[in-house]
């Protein structure tokens, strides 16, 4: 099936009433969690995952992905209006977005932000269509050594890019890998690290861990603050239109941000956040007046807002074509597919075209829905902020508890939720990013399986394992990314010393 034929088929799937409804709910929830500070898209996706078990896999994927990219639209609203980022991918937007609000240009900033997100989202979907299909064709030839190299290389890159100390990222990776070994060994069926518990033989479920470190931990942080009420800036409908000059100045930043975002999304790491910083730096470097950035430059809103949406689309490529998630959000999408007995990877596009193409087409539809939701209805959306935060926080905790229990009706999942909630809170207080742990928990079992298969194939030769051209290239790339910057710093330091 070619891309155009596939897309046409995808629209016939995505336009089914159930899928349209799922897409709407997904982007609406995404926009709301994007608007609300403290509750991120990953926590919301984990919360709603159990509700997708009874759905068709395409419907489940459409709804959960809608939350992910919808949050990128919603997140900018509070950055621009309140100087509070709704989620991490909108932190950069507040630098110039809020300054525009102070100058009375909030409406223009919101419109440019939504238009940039729409363009980048659409460009990203075209990117998925082209890149995922191509990568899947290549990946069919991959064997266990290549998959092992991709998972290992991905984790190394993630450790470098996740922000903060690389040592902390490594500790998180080690913890995630160790947690991934709990349960029954998939090859020998031996129980490992279960401490005699029958329930632990199934392994540690990903969803309660994610709900804990992203949902419960975030609510505990909100609990610190107690009652907080937002001061909302109202925006009238007629104020939403940017001037022709603002449109002109935003065109190229949106185009550059879309490409930067999509490419950043392909790389393991917190792509949505990272891409906004890269796009902002690019715009500042390209500008004739870089000193004005931070004072309400429309380019500083357009570029990053396009980039974070491009990144969410880019992050789908490794998931859909290789079956490898490089971020907690795509790990949840993988979880949703695995629950339905689907294994994303090179064969999914040809064997389950309704899931792949239905999902791709739904992203086009979702972006149009988001444009409508985020512009004319922006006034309605910000009223969500009038909800008392302590009531919202308490209800999110209750939903986390019910959601964790309903996964497999097990008290063990509840304890996992609470333990990882407290642990996630401690990590936030220490400014340690839990993402490497979550991704390692998902990739760990895949890494072990491919390592053992690869060693079996190469008769125990580690050299043969890493010397295959593609494995070697991937590991070399990861090694350069990991050790390159400190080496360059070291060499520069020596050169500067007489």
């Amino acid at each position: 099936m070619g891309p155009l034929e596939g897309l046409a088929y995808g629209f016939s799937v995505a336009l089914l009433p159930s899928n349209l409804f799922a897409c709407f709910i997904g982007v609406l929830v995404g926009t709301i969690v994007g608007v609300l500070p403290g509750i991120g898209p990953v926590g919301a996706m984990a919360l709603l995952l159990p509700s997708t078990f009874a759905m068709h896999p395409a419907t489940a994927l459409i709804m959960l992905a809608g939350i992910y990219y919808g949050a990128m639209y919603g997140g900018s609203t509070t950055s621009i209006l309140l100087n509070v980022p709704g989620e991490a991918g909108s932190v950069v937007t507040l630098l110039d977005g809020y300054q525009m609000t102070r100058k009375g240009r909030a409406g223009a900033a919101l419109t440019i932000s939504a238009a940039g997100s729409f363009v980048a989202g659409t460009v990203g979907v075209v990117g998925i269509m082209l890149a995922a299909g191509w990568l899947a064709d290549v990946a069919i030839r991959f064997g266990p050594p290549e998959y092992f190299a991709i998972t290992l290389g991905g984790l190394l890159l993630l450790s470098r890019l996740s922000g903060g100390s690389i040592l902390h990222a490594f500790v998180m990776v080690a913890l995630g890998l160790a947690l991934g070994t709990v349960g029954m060994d998939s090859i020998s069926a031996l129980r490992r690290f279960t401490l005699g518990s029958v329930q632990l033989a199934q392994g540690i479920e990903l969803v309660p861990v994610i709900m804990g470190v992203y949902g419960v931990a975030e609510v505990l942080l909100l609990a610190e603050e107690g009652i907080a009420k937002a001061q909302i800036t109202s925006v009238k409908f007629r104020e939403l239109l940017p001037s022709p000059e603002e449109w002109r100045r935003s065109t190229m930043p949106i185009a550059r941000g879309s490409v930067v975002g999509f490419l950043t999304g392909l790389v393991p790491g917190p792509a949505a956040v990272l891409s906004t910083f890269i796009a902002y730096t690019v715009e500042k470097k390209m500008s004739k007046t870089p000193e004005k950035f931070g004072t309400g430059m429309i380019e500083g809103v357009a570029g990053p807002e396009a980039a974070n949406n491009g990144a969410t689309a880019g992050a789908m490529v490794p998931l859909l074509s290789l079956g490898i998630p490089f971020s907690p959000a795509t790990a949840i999408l993988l979880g949703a597919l695995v629950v339905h007995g689907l294994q994303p990877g090179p064969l999914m596009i040809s064997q389950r075209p309704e899931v792949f193409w239905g999902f791709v087409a739904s992203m086009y539809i979702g972006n149009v829905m988001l444009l409508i939701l985020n512009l004319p209805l922006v006034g309605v959306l910000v009223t969500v902020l009038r909800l008392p935060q302590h009531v919202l926080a308490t209800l999110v905790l209750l939903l986390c508890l019910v959601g964790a229990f309903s996964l497999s009706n097990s008290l063990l999942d509840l304890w996992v939720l609470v333990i990882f909630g407290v642990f996630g809170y401690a990590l936030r207080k220490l400014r340690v990013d839990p993402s490497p742990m979550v991704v390692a928990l998902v990739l760990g079992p895949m890494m072990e399986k491919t390592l053992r298969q690869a060693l079996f194939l190469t008769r125990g030769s580690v050299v043969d394992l890493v010397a295959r051209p593609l494995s070697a290239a991937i590991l070399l790339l990861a090694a350069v990314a990991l050790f390159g910057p400190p080496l360059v710093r070291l060499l520069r330091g020596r050169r500067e010393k007489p």
Partner: protein
Amino acid sequence: MLARAVPLVLLVAAAVYLTLALRLPFGAAARPGAGFYPVIVAVFAIVVALAATASAFRGAQRAEAVALDAAARRRVVISVVALVAFCLGLPWVGYPVAACVFVTVVLRYLGGRWTTALFTGALSSAGSYGLFAVLLDVPLPRGPW
């Protein structure tokens, strides 16, 4: 203190993990057993946890979390205690009661009034029970009644 405690706990956990991993069949490089990969992970975990502990004890002040005021600490502690109490109480008193008490207590200590907290607790407990247990067929424990 938190900056030193977390890597220390992880170091101890990594040592325990290695001990348990060494009890599993290791196999050989050509035929790796169930313990092969966990031993590699354990060694990696011990090395990085050792480095993190050393780093925390050398320059802990830099990474130390900002201390909370008493009221903020109390709100966090009560939320955690309520979560633990919910997990412990669920099999005994059932979901409707556990959820109602949980929401009431957390909401009250996060800043709500008793009446609002109790009303929200009863409403959210009934609403979530109706949604999950009745509509979605999740077998939430009902308790002795």
